[in-house]
């Protein structure tokens, strides 16, 4: 069914179901990511294929509820195996995950290809669970998936407080009487459920991406769990719906890769453009710190010479040194100070104000800037003193505050102890 062929009732229900799955994957996946269980989810996801094949072999039926039931058992069995390999065989987390993922996925592939090779009736098409094929969903299937998704979201919302506590500080949670292991198991079981529910849309190989990428993208935009969950849900929903719509428009394409690519696009945009944590914001902050700091150094350096003023290159030599990055920072700071009116030509008649970068003329500080410069020099001495005599305090307490250069340091250390 392509979208162009007209939107049937079935299509609408499937899209709604996939939207619910995407939303729930983002919400549930948030705790998978915050509790650092993303890889466990991936192992469970890869195990689902074996579960699907075994359920088919055991029942001879291809109904989605039966197959997904098998997938869920397999996913939980994989998580159990993970704990077992880690505890009993005393293997590290990453190695244990690789073992369980590899073995269970190998089993799944062997079973599915065996079923296909022997031409067992009704066995064709099981490989759709590898990469996802949402177009094969019926309205009844979609309603089942949406129902399971709704339950998963409700459980997470009900246990928001407990899940946050255990994910953030398990030692404190345990000391104050919370059953950390139980909450942990509940969380990974929910992740397993979402991996299974996401199977028809994204497939065993890629469904983890639907559970992991939206939360990581959402984390870029917010510093609060209660905001992160719906945001991750929204990103998951958008990925699932757009991915499924794209695959409907080109029915030969598996759904999973398209869903993941949409999620990746959202992640990339978040990585670059998120306020504060985004790459652009951090770069801007870095530039602002440079600017504040270098302007301060220029002011302090310019405060020293009195009388007939100073030459630009004298200050540059003292502040910038010779490397290109230092010169760039100095040039920016000098220009900004001239524009602010802090640096003025010492003899306006000789050097025009329209020649801010001009190297020839002598410069002086404006009266207002002289006060700022004195202030800066005083602060700089105080900070030098702290960094020199109490390096431990300096490391933990000095922070460059933006954008107001007047309060550049939010320091506990310079204040007297009480």
């Amino acid at each position: 069914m392509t979208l162009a062929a007209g939107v049937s009732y079935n299509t609408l229900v499937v899209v709604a179901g996939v939207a619910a799955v995407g939303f729930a994957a983002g919400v549930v996946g948030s705790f998978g990511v915050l509790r650092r269980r993303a890889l466990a989810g991936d192992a469970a996801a890869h195990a689902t294929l074996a579960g699907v094949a075994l359920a088919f072999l055991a029942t001879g039926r291809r109904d989605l509820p039966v197959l997904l039931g098998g997938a869920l058992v397999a996913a939980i069995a994989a998580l159990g195996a993970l704990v077992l390999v880690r505890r009993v065989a005393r293997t590290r987390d990453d190695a244990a995950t690789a073992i369980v993922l590899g073995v269970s996925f190998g089993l799944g592939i062997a079973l599915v290809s065996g079923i296909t090779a022997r031409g067992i009736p009704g066995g064709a098409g099981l490989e759709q669970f590898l990469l996802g094929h949402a177009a094969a969903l019926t309205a009844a299937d979609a309603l089942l998936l949406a129902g399971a998704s709704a339950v998963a979201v409700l459980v997470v919302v009900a246990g928001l407080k407990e899940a946050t506590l255990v994910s953030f500080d398990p030692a404190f949670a345990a000391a104050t009487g919370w059953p950390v292991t139980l909450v942990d198991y509940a969380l990974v079981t929910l992740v397993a459920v979402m991996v299974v529910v996401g199977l028809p849309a994204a497939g065993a190989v890629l469904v983890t991406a639907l559970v992991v990428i939206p939360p990581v993208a959402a984390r870029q935009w917010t510093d609060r769990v209660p905001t992160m969950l719906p945001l991750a849900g929204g990103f998951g929903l958008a990925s699932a719906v757009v991915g499924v719509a794209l695959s409907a428009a080109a029915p030969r394409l598996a759904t999973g890769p398209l869903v993941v690519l949409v999620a990746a696009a959202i992640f990339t945009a978040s990585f670059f453009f998120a306020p504060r944590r985004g790459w652009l914001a951090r770069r801007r902050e870095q530039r602002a710190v440079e600017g504040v700091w270098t302007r301060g150094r220029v002011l302090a350096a310019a405060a020293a010479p009195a009388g007939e003023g100073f030459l630009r290159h004298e200050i540059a030599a003292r502040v910038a040194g010779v490397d290109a990055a230092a010169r760039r920072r100095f040039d920016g700071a000098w220009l900004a100070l001239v524009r602010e009116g802090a640096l003025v030509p010492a003899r306006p008649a000789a050097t025009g104000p329209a020649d801010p970068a001009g190297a020839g003329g002598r410069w002086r500080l404006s009266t207002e800037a002289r006060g700022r410069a004195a202030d800066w020099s005083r602060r700089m001495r105080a900070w030098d003193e702290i960094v020199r005599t109490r390096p431990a305090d300096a490391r933990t307490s000095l922070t460059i505050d933006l954008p107001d250069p007047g309060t550049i340091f939010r320091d506990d250390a310079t204040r007297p102890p009480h």
Partner: protein
Amino acid sequence: MNPAADPPRSGSPPPLLEFHDVTVAYGRRPVLWNIDLVIAAPCLFGVIGPNGAGKSTLVKAALGLVPLAGGSIHFFGRPFAAVRRRVGYVPQRESVDWDFPVTATDVVLMGTYPRLGWFRRPGSRERTLARECLARVGLADVAGRQIGRLSGGQQQRVFLARALAQEADVYVLDEPMAGVDARSQDLIFRVLADLRAAGRLVVVVHHDLRSAAEWFDRVALVDMRLVATGPTADVLTAENLQRTYAGRLDVLDELGRAVAGRGRTT
């Protein structure tokens, strides 16, 4: 736990905290060796010792976070599990991910969770309490800030505020002065002294001998075994410190010789 082995003491109230013959081992390696320690009355109590002496293990054992190989630990004459609501806890700062998306207030509210129980959310009473606790540690103005954007000393004070929000009778703090600026350290010690003045027992794992002598009423010198315990001035003597810290140097010397010897033969 055999009740006959621990008869109820008639007359005087049971000690606030009691370690009886406690041994803890990580795998086959013992880290605490037959610790007997009784803290009878409220005070500011320091657990002092060199790195790797088992100080943190001692308090983790008390809070049921590491299993005992032998012995027993009682708060108010009862096992910890029965009285955990009366015990506030400040874990080591490195034990959590400070990039976690929670604010200072969110973290302090976690101290009220045991009283709330399953699924109930903090209400206005809890929020008021969290605000007060943050104010007591001087963090009222950063209440809404994500915890990763606080300084080390401020992060430690957030943990202390969370313990205050537990409204406990005994407070256990694991290295609260690690990576903390002088002002924060002073502020934390003042809050702890206030707790003692209010009749609470405060047990602090601490590594700095100078501030230990200044602030603690009583201390325990620990180096796998309990070297000495009692009033601070009586315990922090040159002889005791020699016994606690010099032993470690000997071990290091032996280790050094062993390594050097092996280096020559292979």
